[in-house]
C-alpha cells in the first residue's frame, strides 16, 4: 500500500510505543502535522520549541519511555537545542524530530534552513538526515534503539518536507531488523573476575561506601540496589542525579555529595576506604577538586558507558557492564554484614552534624518545601529548576520513588521546570506534580503557562520570588566581595496577576507565613501557581568554594 513518508513515520512511532508528541508546527513540518490528526498519537502544542524538548525530556524521566518532540526547520530546530543538550547531559532517551527544507534546497540557505545535524552533533547520541521515504521506517527504528540502549540519550531525525510528503510503496509487512553494534572494551570473561574483586573489596573493607549515580535509575536497577545495600549493610551516597534511586528515608542513606551536597555524605566519602561507584561519572560538581576526592579509598566504577570510566577519576577496578546485571550478579557475592563499627562511627558524625540540620541549612525555604510535600499526595513528583530552588528541593524533598524527583543536574538549565512538568503530568497523569522554580528560571519559560492553561494540566507551580538570581547572589556574596552586579530582577511584575492573566489560579504568600496558601494550592482541581516571597539572604549552606575539596565547606563543621 502506498503511504507518504509522514504516514510511515507516524506508523513507526506507534510501533515504538509513542503516544504523545510535544511540538510546534511550521511550513517544513506540515506534512507530518497533516497526518498527525489521523494518528492515535496525541500532539501537545507548546508555546516555544524549547519547551517541547523539555516536556519530552520530563515525560521520559517520569515514565522511563522515550520522549518525542517535533519542531520545524530553521528557528524551530535551533529553539530545541537547549532542551536537547539538557537531555544529553542527563542521558534522557529522546527522539527529536525536525522538519527540514526540501532536499533540492539543502545547502542553499533556503528560507528557514539550518544545518541542525551539524549544530547538534556534540549534544546528540546520533542523528539522521532522511533523504528517501523508503528509509523512514528503518531509520526511526534504529533511532529508538540507539536512544534507549546503552547509556541513553537524544537522537535527532531531520526530515525534509518533500521526503515526508512523497509516497512510497511499502512491500506489505516488511520486517525491519535493527542492530546497533554492541561495542565493548572489556572482555566478558574478565567481568566475572572484576565482580568478584569488587565483592572481595566490599567484604574485606572496613569503611565501604556505595556512590549512586543517575545510571541506576536509567538501568531500572533501583530495587536490586536496595537489596544489595540492605544485605551488606553498606552506607550509600548519591550524586544529585542519583537521588531517589533508593528511598531517601533508607537508614543507610547519607545524602548527596558535591558542591551543594550534604556535609555528612561529603565527610564519609572522604573517610571511606572503598567506594563502589555505580552509574556515576564523577562530574566536577560531585568531586570538587579531583585529587582530594576520597583520598583513602580504592575506587571501583561500574558503568554501561566506557567513556565515563576513568574520564575524571582513575578507577582501580573499572567495569563496563549493564548496571542491573552487575548488581544482580554482585549481590550473592557480597556477604551479609552488620558493620557495627563503621555504622556507629557514621551515626556519631550524623549526630554531631545535627539530624535536622538540612532544614536549617536551606532556611525557611527548605521547611516550606517539606510542608508542601506533606500536603501533596504521597505519589507526587517534584520538578526543580536551577539555582537555590534546586538545592533547597533536592535537599528537603524526601524522595520516595526513583522517578519522584526530576532535576536538570548536568546542564543546569534554567527554565527547565515548567515545561518539563507538563511532560511529567502528561506522562503520569495520576501522580501529583509540583514545580519548584525561582523567579529567574520561571521567567525563562513563562509562556508555557499558556500551554498548561490551554490543556488544563493540573500542575502545581511554586515560584520562589526573592527578586534576584539567588544562587548567583550567594556566589557573589561569598566569592566576589559581595558585589551584587547584574542579578536584581526586582519585584515590579505581579506574578499572581500574570498567572491569572494566563487563566491559572494563583496566590501570593510569604515563605515564613504560608497560611492557607499551600492548602489552597493542593485543593485546586486544576493548575495553580503559588508565588512565595523569600528573603534574598536565604542561601544554601554548607557550600564548597571553587578550587577546594569536598570537606572544605563554608558553613560546615569546623575541624
Amino acid at each position, binding site marked *: 500500500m502506498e503511504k507518504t513518508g509522514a504516514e510511515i513515520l507516524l506508523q513507526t512511532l506507534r510501533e515504538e510505543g509513542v503516544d504523545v508528541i510535544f511540538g510546534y508546527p511550521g511550513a517544513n513540518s506540515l506534512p507530518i502535522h497533516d497526518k498527525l490528526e489521523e494518528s492515535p498519537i496525541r500532539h501537545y502544542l507548546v508555546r516555544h520549541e524549547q519547551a517541547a524538548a523539555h516536556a519530552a525530556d520530563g515525560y521520559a524521566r517520569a515514565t522511563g519511555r522515550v520522549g518525542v518532540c517535533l519542531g520545524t526547520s530553521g528557528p524551530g530546530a535551533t529553539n530545541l537545542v537547549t532542551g536537547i543538550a539538557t537531555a544529553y547531559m542527563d542521558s534522557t532517551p529522546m527522539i527529536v524530530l525536525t522538519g527540514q527544507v526540501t532536499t533540492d534546497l539543502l545547502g542553499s540557505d533556503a528560507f528557514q534552513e539550518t544545518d541542525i*545535524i*551539524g549544530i547538534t*552533533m556534540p549534544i546528540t547520541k546520533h542523528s539522521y*538526515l532522511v533523504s528517501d521515504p523508503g528509509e523512514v521506517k528503518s531509520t526511526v527504528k534504529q533511532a529508538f534503539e*540507539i536512544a534507549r540502549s546503552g547509556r541513553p540519550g537524544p537522537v535527532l531525525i531531520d526530515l525534509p518536507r518533500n521526503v515526508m510528503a512523497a509516497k512510497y510503496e511499502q512491500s506489505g509487512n516488511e520486517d525491519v531488523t535493527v542492530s546497533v*553494534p554492541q561495542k565493548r572494551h572489556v572482555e566478558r570473561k574478565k567481568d566475572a573476575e572484576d565482580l568478584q574483586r569488587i565483592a572481595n573489596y566490599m567484604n574485606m573493607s572496613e569503611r565501604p561506601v556505595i556512590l549512586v549515580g543517575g545510571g541506576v535509575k536509567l538501568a531500572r536497577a533501583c530495587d536490586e540496589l536496595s537489596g544489595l545495600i540492605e544485605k551488606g549493610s553498606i552506607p550509600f551516597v548519591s550524586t544529585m542525579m542519583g537521588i531517589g534511586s533508593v528511598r531517601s528515608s533508607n537508614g543507610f542513606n547519607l545524602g548527596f555529595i558535591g558542591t551543594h551536597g550534604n556535609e555528612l555524605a561529603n565527610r564519609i566519602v572522604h573517610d571511606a576506604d572503598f567506594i563502589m561507584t555505580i552509574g556515576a561519572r564523577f562530574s566536577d560538581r560531585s568531586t570538587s577538586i579531583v585529587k582530594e576526592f576520597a583520598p583513602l579509598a580504592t575506587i571501583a566504577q561500574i558503568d554501561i*558507558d*566506557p*567513556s565515563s570510566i576513568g574520564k575524571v577519576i582513575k578507577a582501580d577496578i573499572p567495569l563496563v557492564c549493564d548496571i542491573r546485571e552487575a548488581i544482580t550478579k554482585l549481590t550473592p557475592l557480597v556477604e551479609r554484614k552488620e558493620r557495627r563499627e563503621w555504622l556507629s562511627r557514621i551515626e556519631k558524625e550524623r549526630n554531631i552534624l545535627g539530624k535536622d540540620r538540612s532544614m536549617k541549612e536551606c532556611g525557611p525555604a527548605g521547611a516550606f518545601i517539606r510542608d508542601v510535600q506533606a500536603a501533596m499526595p504521597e505519589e507526587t513528583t517534584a520538578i526543580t529548576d536551577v539555582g537555590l530552588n534546586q538545592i533547597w528541593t533536592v535537599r528537603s524533598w524526601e524522595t520516595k520513588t526513583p522517578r519522584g524527583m526530576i532535576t536538570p543536574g548536568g546542564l543546569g538549565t534554567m527554565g527547565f521546570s515548567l515545561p518539563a512538568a507538563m511532560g511529567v503530568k502528561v506522562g503520569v497523569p495520576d501522580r501529583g506534580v509540583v514545580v519548584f522554580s525561582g523567579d529567574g528560571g520561571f521567567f525563562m519559560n513563562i509562556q508555557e503557562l499558556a500551554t498548561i492553561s490551554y490543556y488544563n494540566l493540573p500542575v502545581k507551580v511554586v515560584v520562589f520570588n526573592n527578586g534576584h538570581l539567588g544562587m548567583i547572589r550567594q556566589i557573589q556574596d561569598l566569592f566576589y566581595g559581595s558585589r551584587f552586579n547584574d542579578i536584581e530582577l526586582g519585584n515590579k511584575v505581579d506574578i499572581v496577576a500574570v498567572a491569572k492573566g494566563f487563566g491559572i489560579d494563583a496566590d501570593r504568600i510569604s515563605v515564613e507565613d504560608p497560611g492557607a496558601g499551600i492548602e489552597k494550592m493542593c485543593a485546586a482541581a486544576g493548575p495553580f501557581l503559588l508565588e512565595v516571597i523569600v528573603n534574598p539572604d536565604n542561601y544554601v549552606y554548607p557550600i564548597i568554594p571553587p578550587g577546594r575539596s569536598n570537606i572544605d565547606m563554608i558553613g560546615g563543621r569546623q575541624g
Partner: protein
Amino acid sequence: MGIRERIIAILVNNKPGVLSRVAGVFGRLGYNIESLCVAETISPEISRITSITNADSDFIDKVKKQLTRLVDVLDVTELFPGQSAQREMILIGINLDQEGRAEIVRSIGMFDCKIISMRNDYCIIQVAGSREEVETVINFLKPLGIDKIARTGVLALRYKDSGF
C-alpha cells in the same frame, strides 16, 4: 607518557557526515589532527581513516572511548611503528631555471621518486616512502625552490591484521 606522534586507524561506515563526527571528537578534546587520510576499504560500505596526532598516551584512551561512542565508528586502533607498515606519498611542485632543471634530472635517480610532469619552468615530482624517506627528499629539494607540496599523510597497516 611523553608527547609523540600517534597513529590511529579508525574504521567507519562510509556515509555522509561521518568524517565530521570523527573530526569533531578530536577538536572537542583539544587535539589537532596533523594528517588524515580517508578512503573506502575492500568493503565499499566501510572506510578507513588513518590519522596522526601529536599527543600523550592519555589521548589514546580518551579519543578511543569517545570515538567508540559514535554509532558509525566500528573500530579504533593505535598503530605502532614496529608493528605496522607506514607509507606517505607527496607531490612536490618546483619552479625551475635551466640549472635547476639539470640538477633535478641528474639527482632524481638517487631517490625513489618520479617526475610526473616537466615543463620549461615547472615540474612536479612524486615521492613515496616512509616518513624519513620523504622528509629526506623534501630537504634535498628545498634549495632548488619548492613551490608547493601536497601530502597524503601517513598510511599505515598492521603487519598482521585481519578484517578490513
